């Protein structure tokens, strides 16, 4: 079923131009002074980055839930996002100059987590071992990140790291878009390639293999796809949680519920969610702008609890 795709594309086409105008200062393209610079150099790259990061997280979440056959799975489970965060924190700790180095360190962290996952899980492609390995990598990366924070030379460095970890799209520019967009696009394409395998997994691991799915190949596609989408997302925007969990849920009822047909709609809906959430962060009348990562967690955690309550009711 392709119905949700045009619907979501339309919504994005409406939301994207509107988001450019919204902010602490509402821009009127015809009367605001320097409107072209504000829109072209500040708001457009930021909006596109929101679309790219949200799209990657949405697609990664859909693929992850399909792979684990669990609607509560989140791409963070594989340890790739914490690995990327660790890389970024290291570059901050070392006081490296900004620009390209921080995203590169984050990508290296994501790649390290992916490599470790692939080494531990081996060639057999069993899902339980893989998930446990991912969770251990996540907690190891989390512990190392905490260690890095505690080793920060001064309070300023500590606060810089902590604020970065909260995730945001403030002060991002075209170089960030140029880095994240191709990597995320490639990642989504890889995840989509794994779609048939994810569909087959609906029937369980044994049935999927009997349908000709090669588990090792599917796992490799997912690790690479999630590594590229989530890794590049963390590299340019910090840690942004819950998008990968919430979005596939919201979109699933609009599709035929096959994991393969959920990936692209989830990418579009993730893009829309992060774009709107980022606008709201800009619009809220607070002294400092609300961090995007915090805002999405504030929406996401109650959503997750609502899901759990709903599942409990259904289980009774």
């Amino acid at each position, binding site marked *: 079923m392709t119905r949700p795709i045009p619907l979501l594309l339309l919504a994005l086409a409406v939301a994207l131009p509107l988001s450019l105008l919204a902010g602490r200062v509402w821009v009127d393209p015809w009367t605001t002074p320097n409107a072209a610079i504000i829109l072209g150099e500040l708001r457009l790259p930021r909006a596109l980055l929101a679309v790219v990061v949200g799209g990657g997280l949405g697609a990664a979440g859909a693929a992850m839930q399909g792979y684990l*056959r669990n609607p509560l799975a989140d791409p963070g489970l594989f340890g790739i996002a914490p690995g990327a965060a660790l890389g970024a924190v290291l570059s901050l700790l070392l006081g490296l100059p900004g620009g390209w180095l921080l995203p590169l360190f984050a990508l290296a962290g994501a790649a390290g987590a992916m490599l470790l996952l692939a080494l531990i899980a081996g060639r057999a492609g069993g899902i339980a071992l893989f998930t446990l390995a991912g969770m251990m990598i996540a907690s190891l990366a989390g512990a190392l990140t905490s260690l890095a924070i505690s080793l920060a030379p001064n309070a300023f460095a500590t606060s810089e790291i902590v604020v970065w970890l909260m995730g945001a799209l403030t002060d991002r520019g075209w170089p960030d878009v140029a880095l994240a967009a191709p990597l995320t696009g490639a990642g989504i394409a890889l995840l989509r390639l794994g779609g*048939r395998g994810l*569909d*087959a*997994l*609906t*029937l*369980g691991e*044994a*049935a999927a*293999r*009997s*349908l*000709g*799915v*090669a588990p090792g190949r599917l796992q490799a596609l997912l690790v690479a796809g999630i590594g590229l989408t989530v890794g590049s997302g963390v590299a340019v925007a910090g840690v942004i949680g819950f998008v990968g969990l919430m979005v596939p849920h919201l979109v699933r009822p609009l599709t*035929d*519920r*096959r*994991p393969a047909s959920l990936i692209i709609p989830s990418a579009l809906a993730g893009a829309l969610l992060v774009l709107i959430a980022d606008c709201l962060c800009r619009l809220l009348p607070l002294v400092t702008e609300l961090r995007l990562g915090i805002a999405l967690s504030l929406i996401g955690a109650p959503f997750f609890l609502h899901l759990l309550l709903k599942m409990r009711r259904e289980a009774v």
Partner: protein
Amino acid sequence: MLEARGISLAGRLAGVSALLRAGEVTAICGPNGAGKSTLLQCLAGLLLPEGGAAMLDGANLASLEPRTRARAIGYLPQEGEIAWDLSVQNLVALGRLPYRDRGEAQVNAAIEALDLETLSTRPVSTLSGGEKARALLARVLAGEPRWLLADEPLAALDLGHQLDLVGRLREVARSGAGVVLVLHDLSLAMNHADRVLVLDKDGLVADAPPEVALDPELIEQVWGVPARWLGERGARALVAG
């Protein structure tokens, strides 16, 4: 032709050889832990034997492309898992995954063959146990496999649905495919299989028509339970003691 050629696997199977024939229903029986499901998974190409090989038309299953194997051998696992709430139509269409096409004709034929037409748009979560078992069988048939291997397909069904499903499995065999079933219920094997393989922990102890393979003496030897058959051919019942 599907063949087990001296299949051995760590402590579960010891040199099992058997030749399975197309157009027949073969039942694999044996006590718990005898390796029935393990043998079935080896024959489906899902487990790699440590010794021996599973052969399809003279070729080692392990050397076949997964998709080539998937087109020849359909496998129905015991659990009957359906992780997402697909419609019956979309569930059955999963059987076409080994092919590049959507196979609408084959999907519709499978839905018709199992009398699922009126249910085809229903979400699987709304099906009864019997309907779900039929839908899962239709999923395998949509791939038009030459071999249908099913692990305890009747275990979760009540008597009426057992008879219904076993009748449909016999139809599949009549149409020329080979049907191999792991069965716990010896009466079902006796009444509905053309051939029975009896496994115990030492390996294959019988490979014969059901009246011979499920002889009371052998049942006592393998299952450790004295038993006798009541009733007539085609409608026999096993009584312990």
